[in-house]
């Protein structure tokens, strides 16, 4: 029995509602649950269908690349992109009969926008992964995301923002080969960038209508930052980064200053602007500032300091993951719990390998490791299910 049913029972016992009213309410609760499940299925099917349509359009052009004139290719690409946007908007906001399909088509149009840009670049033999292309894609998608307050579009915008900032700062010609000699600063900048995107999301959370977008930006920012902290927890990585003594380019310095200042100032401004501040907000800001500080600690990495710095980053990552777990539990946010437990689990696993690989006989190493994994996994899954049930009931 869920919390809703328990409350209804209590209301009947207290005489707040009659038995007939309680029956009607129970039926509505069951109906609402069914509707929720069915909505998710429709969204999933619509999105997959829209994506398949997009892939089909691109593949059609790709397979007839040589046969088609440049103009024909451009017409097909533009018609697919604008057709998808127009139809999506029609179903979502004009006719309003198929909003899920409409959202899926609009999401597809945001992807086709980028694909069209990349293929136009290919037609003119310009580097298609250059930062300019990512920026133009972002400029095209971001207004759509804000206009519709859409989570999936905010995801595209957030990912594009990170990729653009990286490619712009490091003159990355394509993401398969980093071409500049300042790449040793890439993890440092990425860590600050993650914190900046997290803060950017925090600023969005000040307005109720941007809550969904705020959450997306914060999750992407947090995941990016945690991934770099994880990378820095390896002494080998820090040693590798210390080998190349290169001067940061002016663009890198400017990007670092902008990302750091944005994190500190906007984060502080958010705290001051919050009307109903909780201790979580202050802790969140404190952790973000600490993460930015840790990013700059990585500059101290050299052959002598790598081992001790790796320990600092390991502790840092564990603390951030624990804070996420705690906040997720307190705020009844399963996503935060999953994120915190995921990174903590990965960290424990990796450190187990680091410490015991040479110390234990191989058979014992795998036996203990396996037992720990199975035990830990079972415990985590049970705890996660427990929390999920608890959070769902509260909602």
């Amino acid at each position, binding site marked *: 029995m869920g919390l809703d049913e328990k409350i209804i029972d209590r209301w009947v016992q207290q005489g707040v509602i009659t038995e007939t009213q309680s029956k009607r309410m129970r039926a509505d609760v069951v109906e609402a649950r069914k509707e929720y499940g069915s909505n998710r299925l429709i969204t999933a099917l619509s999105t997959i269908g829209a994506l398949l349509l997009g892939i089909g359009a691109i593949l059609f052009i790709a397979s007839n690349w040589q046969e088609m004139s440049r103009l024909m290719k451009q017409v097909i690409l533009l018609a697919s992109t604008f057709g998808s946007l127009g139809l999506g908007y029609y179903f979502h906001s004009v006719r309003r009969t198929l909003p899920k399909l409409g959202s899926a088509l609009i999401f597809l149009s945001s992807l086709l926008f980028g694909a069209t840009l990349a*293929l136009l670049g*290919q037609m003119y033999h*310009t580097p298609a992964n250059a930062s300019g292309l990512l920026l133009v894609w972002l*400029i*095209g998608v971001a207004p*759509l995301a804000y206009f519709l307050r859409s989570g999936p579009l905010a995801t595209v915008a957030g990912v594009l923002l990170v990729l653009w900032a990286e490619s712009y700062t490091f003159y990355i*010609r394509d993401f398969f080969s980093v071409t500049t000699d300042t790449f040793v600063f890439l993890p440092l900048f990425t860590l600050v960038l993650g914190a900046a995107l997290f803060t950017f999301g925090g600023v969005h959370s000040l307005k109720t209508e941007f809550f969904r977008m705020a959450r997306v930006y914060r999750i992407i920012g947090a995941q990016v930052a945690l991934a770099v902290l994880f990378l820095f927890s390896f002494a080998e990585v820090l040693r590798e980064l210390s080998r190349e003594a290169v001067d940061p380019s*002016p663009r890198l310095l400017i990007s670092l200053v902008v990302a750091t200042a944005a994190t500190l100032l906007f984060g502080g401004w958010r705290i001051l602007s919050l009307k109903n501040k909780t201790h979580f907000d202050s802790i969140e800001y404190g952790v973000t500032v600490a993460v930015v500080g840790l990013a700059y600690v990585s500059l101290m990495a050299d052959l002598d300091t790598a081992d001790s710095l790796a320990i600092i980053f390991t502790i840092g990552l564990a603390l951030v993951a624990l804070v996420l777990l705690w906040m997720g539990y307190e705020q009844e946010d399963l996503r935060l719990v999953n994120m915190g437990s995921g990174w903590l689990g990965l960290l424990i696993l990796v450190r187990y390998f680091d410490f015991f690989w040479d110390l234990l006989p191989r058979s014992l190493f795998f036996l203990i490791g396996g037992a720990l994994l199975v035990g830990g996994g079972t415990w985590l899954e049970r705890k996660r299910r427990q929390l999920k049930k608890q959070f769902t009931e509260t909602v």
Partner: protein
Amino acid sequence: MIKRFSSHTLLLLIALLWVVIFGWFIIYYERTLQSGVEVVLATEPIDPRDLLRGDYVILNYTISRFSTSLYDLPPRIRVGTGLYISLTPQDGVSEITAVSLAPPATLPYIRGTVRAVSGDSVTVDYGIESYFVPEGEGKVLEQARGEQLRVRVSLSPNGKALIKELLLNGQVVSF
């Protein structure tokens, strides 16, 4: 009603922004190709790459790498610095005659960005280092190593370069 009207207007504005972006892209590139100043650059293919976008060949131009000490440039050039390279045809191929930080007074010149610095030698990107070929056909160009490979490039009035065609031993390469 007002809200609905404004949401339609907003979507139309976004669609208009997309039209401007695509339109500018296509018109600018077509104009550069049709009416830009043509130069021929010597190059060699580095390797065909198989990425998500299909096959492309990386072109390494003879003007991509040069010593800064040969030209009137500041002693320390950093990655990301924009350079303007004046070109003059010599034996059918354009060669560097001057390099400056500001656009030169006379055409033709090509605009580039410093990608790497090693001592006084710099590697410059001109945005024409990728040549897209149909899947699996990049080998033809890869095997052209040691042969005479030229690229006919069209330059816009501000030095932006676009590949017009590839010439292998004087013949236009078509796929």
